[in-house]
């Protein structure tokens, strides 16, 4: 079964799932970061020019700021802001280690320094190819540092419990099956009515009914499950 997720098992036996993010999403995050950096650098350049004029000190200071901001911005963001630069935050991505732990100085500096290798021969062509061929969308820097870029986990908001009279299940269901029933009732309003009835007919072994009656019975089951 193809599923974009990676499953990790912690020593406590808890299953964590991470979803590695593909090149397109990451490219947008990179673009946002780059534009923000460019704007910041231009503003700083104008400020320095304004304050110091055309002097050696101004030029040197600008070069130092250029260097520190280019290399420092992603590293500082990743270490202190939960693995997210501003672009990644906007795109809902974050950098973690391969075992799901947050990145530290070592991983973050390695993966960002290796941007140089990913850039070769021009415009991150190597990094792009590497991401497309790796099954976890890692570029060279990620491979060396042992990191992953994943979608920030989001908790899906459950809707309020179903109102109405509850009805006990005729026989026990697995958690997966219970979740499917809840999903069905929650998504019913977005489904075409004919499709809803079709699904209700499919649930005949469970409800013993067909059509509208079956759907109403399913609602009653779910009211019991979500109470």
């Amino acid at each position, binding site marked *: *079964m*193809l*599923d*974009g997720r990676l499953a990790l098992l912690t020593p406590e036996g808890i299953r964590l799932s991470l*979803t*590695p*993010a*593909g*090149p*397109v*999403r990451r*490219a*947008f995050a990179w673009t946002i970061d780059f534009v923000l950096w460019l704007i910041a650098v231009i503003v700083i350049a104008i400020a320095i020019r304004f304050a*110091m*004029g*055309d*002097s*050696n*000190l*101004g030029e*040197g*200071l600008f070069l*130092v700021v250029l260097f520190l901001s280019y290399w420092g911005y992603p590293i500082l963001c990743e270490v202190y802001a939960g693995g997210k630069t501003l672009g990644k935050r906007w795109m809902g991505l974050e950098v973690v280690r391969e075992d799901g732990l947050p990145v530290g100085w070592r991983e973050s500096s390695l993966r960002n320094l290796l941007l140089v290798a990913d850039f070769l*021969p*021009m*415009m*991150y*062509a*190597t990094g*792009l*190819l590497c991401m*497309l061929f790796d*099954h976890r*969308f890692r570029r060279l820097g990620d491979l060396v540092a042992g990191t992953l870029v994943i*979608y920030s986990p989001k908790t*899906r908001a459950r809707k309020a419990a179903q109102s109405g009279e509850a009805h006990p299940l005729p026989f026990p*269901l697995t958690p*997966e*099956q219970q979740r*499917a029933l809840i*999903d*069905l009732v929650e*998504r019913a309003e*977005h*489904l075409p009515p004919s*499709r809803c009835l079709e*699904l209700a007919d*499919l*649930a*005949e*072994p*469970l409800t013993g009914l067909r059509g509208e009656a079956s759907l109403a019975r399913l609602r009653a089951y779910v009211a019991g499950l979500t109470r």
Partner: protein
Amino acid sequence: MRLDRLQLDLRPRSHSQALDLGVALLRQSYFTCYATWLALWLPLNLLCGLLAWQYQDWAFFFLVIPWWLRPLLERVIVLVLSRAVFGQQLSWWQALRAWPKELGGGWFRVLTWWRLFMPGRGLYQPIWQLEQARGRFAADRRRVLGRDGAGPAAYWFGIACVHFEAVLQIGLISLIGLFTAPPDAMNPLWMLFDQEIAQSQPVFLMSLACYAIAVGIMAPIYTACCFTLYLNRRAELEAWDIEIILRRLAQERQGSKSLKLPTVGHTLAVLLAVMLILPQAVQAAPQCEPPEDKKVEADLIARQRTPAQSTEQQAIRAELDKVYAHDDLRGYRCVQTWTAKNKTPKEPEKEDKDEEDKGKRSEKVPDWASDLTKAILILGAIALVAWLLYRYRDRIVGAFQQAETRKLPGEVAGMDIRPESLPDDIPTAVRKLWAEGQQRNALGLLYRATLSRLVHQYALALTQGATEGDCVKLAQQAHQQGELPADTLALTQDITRIWLAAAYAQQWPSDAALDSSCSRWQQTFGGAA
């Protein structure tokens, strides 16, 4: 449509995650996809390249043709993937034969204004191709599928893919540029910036070839990702995931045993396959010569062995050898590493610095300010390095220390042999314990003290895991090498014998024997520590 055969794990996921899933789907049947796609795409490009070469006035027109026809060619990828996603693998030849039948529907739209302004076309191609929808119905379907952000997601995905194609194309051109550049060129894209060379025919065709390769790589990825977005969207709209679970529930209720048999067969098949593959995998590990000292050791063991007394013993020995030859026990590892080839030192080129513009600076900030800042920055860098060295001093010092001095064991055979754990006058303490009736403690102390002296006085290399026998053997070796006097060895052997008999067989020595041992100990090792 048999949803139970679907190879995707259906669950509600975001559009970008659904798009990413396409790469995984493509990976599953990458050979067929790329083979069919390239079988159409590369010949078309070759043909157009040749025509452009022949009729140079029309070159631009011929170069647009592959770009223009691409949406129709992409349908062959959708064809392969739509079968693969339900577990049916087409061969590339079958797919090519079936391709012309897939061209109907939507081709006018796709080849005219959509070609320019609709990078998200991949999401909608399956509507014509797989659902066979036409006209107004197709438009309705497009509207439904594109709702809830799916349409914009496909649109932006398409725009990103166009840029990726450009990245790959420029990357390829600059890779060629890097290796063909004149020595003083700085720009790997020098070919495109030189007006004369850029317009020459070979460079023109080379960039076409790079375009063909870049799109050759990206188009299946684009199509597959849009296709999984389409599938995800339909699964969401039609609740496929719920249908699969309900169907499975119905099947379970019917109590069909036929469901379970195939799984057992499947597991067996997998097990068999694993067993067949495993030996080869083990053999595939790198083989290498054992290091010199291991060879000597193996030689020694072989020479010390008496000839086998029976075939049974021979068999056991063979088995033992096999066990010891295993990677975990043989004491060395085979590792493949890179080693440097012969290096030729290169003379650093001198850089000429033009100092001309120094005079032109305005005097708003004096020159000494920049020198001061420079000094501060350099001092800061030195301070940072110093701080890092100080911060990690334990690790750095520790790394050197461990290499130089061997740590003396504090414990041998479960006994504490540090000198500070022993009383000053050993024989007196032993005699006292013996007189008090604590025979075991007395003998234990005597033996402990002996080992301690061997380690600390004669620097015998006892290890923590050494047994009493090992200690005697080491003492013998030290004697043979002239590091241990004969009487010390004899005393060690005697005390070990007495200790072993007492500790493991409860046979206590006579008072006289103990007394003589104590006096000999006094003579050999001296009373005080």
